[in-house]
């Protein structure tokens, strides 16, 4: 087995035991990247220089017996996480060459845990998209089928993990941007509770929905990464000061006696039959191990996409106002006056999807429309949250498909925003309600495309997601299939 095929916990074991070194590991990853990256294009930029410095430091600290939970482990960062002194583009021309003078809190925590950063991964521009096709720096391809999209917006991170171009990766999830690409690329992806992982230094898309989370090769790695990145941050007002458990304690525990809610609204027509079969297979496997499946109802589910596409663009239209060409990033040449500077800079700096959402967001906040759109959407959002509160009184977790279909073809939905938006139909609700969710691989379609099952839990109960995800992995023998690259 190649070093780059190992999980975080396997790699860490070999590093600590001295079987290999951080430098060797990093060499293996960069060789792997060199071999596959021109086909996958998971990265926007590689951080080779600083990565080798970090690897050297990791080897030194291992020799000195100072071992962090991620010492020497190569991790990729979605290019939405600010990295001190290193370009952070959000896959947008408007931030091309922007170098933040600060680390995102998550980046700082990973650094402190000994991680080695391989590079910044590709994404939909400003995380707006479900296919990683709206990136200014070109598309990322699904390692399982290079003619297909990896999902999005964190498609680069998902593809990098699936293609063994890093041991684990960080992504962000505003409406499914971690869980959906994790499902489509056959890896584990978690969106924690809103407020659990600091958003400081995460370039904002929709502030009330954004949340950072990990992409990993297995659930154990997910627990390890969550242990590092979760926790209160005084630099974020919406960060919640709630005690963080050791997520590893939830691994390898049975879910016997658990009640698993199966929301009928998530199993309606429109789901690909193969996806449905794989997800139902996962449910039955859990049932077989002693969990109880109960049908539940989340009646406001049908409004999720509509509510999301009002709230997210509204917040985005305001969050993206700062990209005006005045202080940093791209500025159009030779404007005649201030207004022209704004217009030229933002016209040339943003791509079509970002502009579409800025326009929608500006519209729904406009005087005369605010009540009908933004305010109404906020009220419905509260109802969606109440749906979950009611259901979680009846069950421990909820099980749904992560996506309605497996990975679609490049370009298939790019010109049809509604179809594209519907690919997040099962993931959006968790962001609106602020609850945690995880996508775990649960099989393949006949064409060999991965399928993911999503589990949702009440606020701050990520532990339950780790527990059931881990239980499912032991029930479904570890998938030996790897993408052929």
């Amino acid at each position: 087995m190649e070093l780059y095929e190992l999980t975080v916990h396997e790699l860490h074991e070999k590093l600590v035991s001295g079987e290999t070194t951080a430098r060797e590991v990093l060499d293996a990853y960069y060789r792997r990247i060199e071999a596959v990256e021109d086909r996958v294009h998971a990265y926007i930029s590689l951080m080779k220089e600083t990565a080798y410095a970090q690897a050297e430091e990791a080897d030194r600290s291992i020799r000195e017996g100072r071992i962090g939970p991620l010492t020497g482990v190569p991790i990729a960062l979605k290019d939405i996480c600010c990295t001190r002194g290193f370009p952070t583009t959000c896959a947008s021309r408007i931030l091309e060459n922007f170098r933040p003078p600060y680390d995102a809190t998550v980046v700082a925590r990973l650094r402190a845990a000994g991680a080695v950063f391989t590079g910044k991964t590709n994404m939909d521009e400003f995380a707006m998209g479900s296919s990683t096709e709206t990136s200014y720096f070109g598309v990322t391809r699904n390692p399982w089928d290079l003619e297909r999209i990896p999902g999005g917006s964190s498609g680069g991170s998902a593809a990098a993990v699936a293609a063994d171009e890093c041991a684990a990766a960080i992504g962000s999830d505003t409406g499914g941007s971690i869980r959906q690409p994790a499902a489509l690329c056959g890896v584990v992806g978690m969106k924690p509770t809103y407020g659990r992982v600091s958003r400081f230094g995460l370039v904002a898309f929709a502030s009330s929905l954004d949340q950072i989370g990990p992409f990993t090769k297995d659930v154990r790695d997910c627990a390890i990464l969550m242990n590092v990145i979760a926790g209160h941050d005084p630099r974020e007002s919406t960060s919640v000061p709630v005690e963080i458990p050791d997520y590893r304690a939830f691994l390898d525990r049975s879910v016997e006696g658990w009640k698993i809610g199966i929301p009928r609204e998530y199993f309606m027509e429109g789901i690909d039959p193969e996806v449905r079969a794989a997800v139902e297979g996962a449910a039955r496997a859990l049932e077989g191990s002693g969990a109880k499946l109960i049908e539940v109802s989340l009646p406001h589910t049908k409004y999720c996409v509509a509510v999301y596409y009002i709230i997210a663009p509204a917040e985005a239209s305001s969050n993206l106002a700062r990209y005006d060409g005045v202080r940093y990033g791209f500025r159009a040449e030779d404007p005649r006056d201030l207004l022209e500077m704004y217009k030229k800079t933002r016209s040339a700096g943003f791509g079509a999807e970002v502009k579409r959402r800025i326009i929608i967001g500006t519209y729904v906040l406009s005087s005369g429309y605010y009540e009908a759109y933004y305010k109404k959407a906020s009220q419905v959002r509260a109802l969606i949250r109440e749906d979950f509160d009611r259901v979680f009184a009846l069950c421990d977790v909820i099980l749904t498909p992560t996506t309605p279909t497996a990975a679609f073809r490049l370009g298939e939905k790019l010109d049809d925003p509604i179809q594209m938006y519907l690919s997040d139909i099962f993931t959006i609700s968790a962001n609106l309600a602020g609850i945690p969710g995880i996508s775990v691989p649960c099989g393949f379609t006949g064409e060999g495309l991965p399928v993911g099952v999503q589990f949702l839990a009440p606020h701050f109960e990520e532990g339950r997601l780790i527990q059931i995800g881990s239980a499912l992995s032991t029930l479904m023998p570890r998938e030996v299939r790897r993408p052929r690259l």
Partner: protein
Amino acid sequence: MEYEPVIGLEVHAQLLTSSKIFCACSTAFGAPPNTNTCPVCLGMPGVLPVLNRKVVEFAVKMALATNCRINTYNRFARKNYFYPDLPKGYQISQYALPLAEDGHLIVETAAGKKRIGITRIHMEEDAGKLIHDEHNPYSYVDLNRTGVPLIEIVSEPDIHSAEEAAAYLRALHEILVYLGICDGNMEEGSFRCDANVSLRPKGQEAFGTRTELKNMNSFRNVQRALEYEIKRQEYILEGGGEIVQETRLWDDSQGVTNPMRGKEEAHDYRYFPDPDLVTVHIDETWIEEIRKTLPELPMARRERLQKEYGLPAYDAGVLTSSRALADYYEEAARLCGAPKIAANWVMGDLLKLLNEEGKTFDACPVGAASLARMIRLIEDGTISGKIAKELLQEMYAAGKEPEEIIAERGLVQITDEGALKAVIEEILAANPAQVAQYRAGKEKVFGFFVGQAMKATGGKANPRLLNDLLKRMLAP
């Protein structure tokens, strides 16, 4: 037709916290451009605001001082618009749920006391400043001021003359400074005022079309701008014209208001709750804690000074014009036990000395205790009032205690009858012609003898004793 002006004022006051409202940067005025900045107030990608608790505390003080109802739950909202001095493209302000509402202020006008309603007080961040280069077509942005905390105080349209507006502004200003939450410096922009003005025929309920006045950076300018604008609107209405709803800038040098050009279009600020900030919760306990720290407010103090010390309204007004002055006065009055005399000295000689140097009572070189001792020395006859005037000047200049100077310079008043008699005898003997004139009925000559005696004693003769002795000794 007779018109009644209707005026509402919006005041922006910078709060005197040492750090900004949403980051730890300094609020100091006058630093080199863009040095009091950080990624948060520069609006860099991914940064987040964290509310400075002190700002809430200061704002609550003002809300309490203006009799407002404080909203237990209030929240920040984003006011969206593009301008280079606004790094995020939105200003964090408050909209639907402000800090406080429904207050009022009693102000004193020539026509007596008047109650002016306060619609709301809310917290917000200040924007930066643009610096325009006169010699080339560039503008520069200084973001030091970005994120300096402000409160906006919005009045009801209860004001009906320029004079009332000025009185209201002075009262607000005085309270802010008394509370120690704003330095009140209008030139540096710590206290700014915009006005909404309209006219309506006297007796009519409905408001006329209003204009908004900006760029008035002193009380005098606010009053002048309003007077001008009222006349301008009156002239248009009298001529059968219509008022255009617009923003107008006060031009101080021309003494006129002109429509603002360029920037002003009908803005839609697209306010919505800021998702980066949680609801601000101000419970009763916190409000009570803050209430306990409130000083006595200027109007209450003025009334108390009149009652407690028997001062005329005018004196009480002058003495409470700043908290430092009032504190100084009260200490001196209490220590010397002669409040009226203390008032005269503080408002007269001492204030004049301070004004000459542009100083305030915070930095008075003569302590209140020293002044009180000096007054007691006059009262017990040790020195004369005339000597005291010189004495105070020396105390002020040298920072010495009164007794010290009196001893050094031998300024003690001559109250010894024998000593004074000897002096007078000498003068009478040296001026027989004047003595004869006086005794012949020319009483004016009396002043001559007083002058001679004072000259001979270096001004130290007790005036009353001197008068008595002179009269007796000149009697035929």
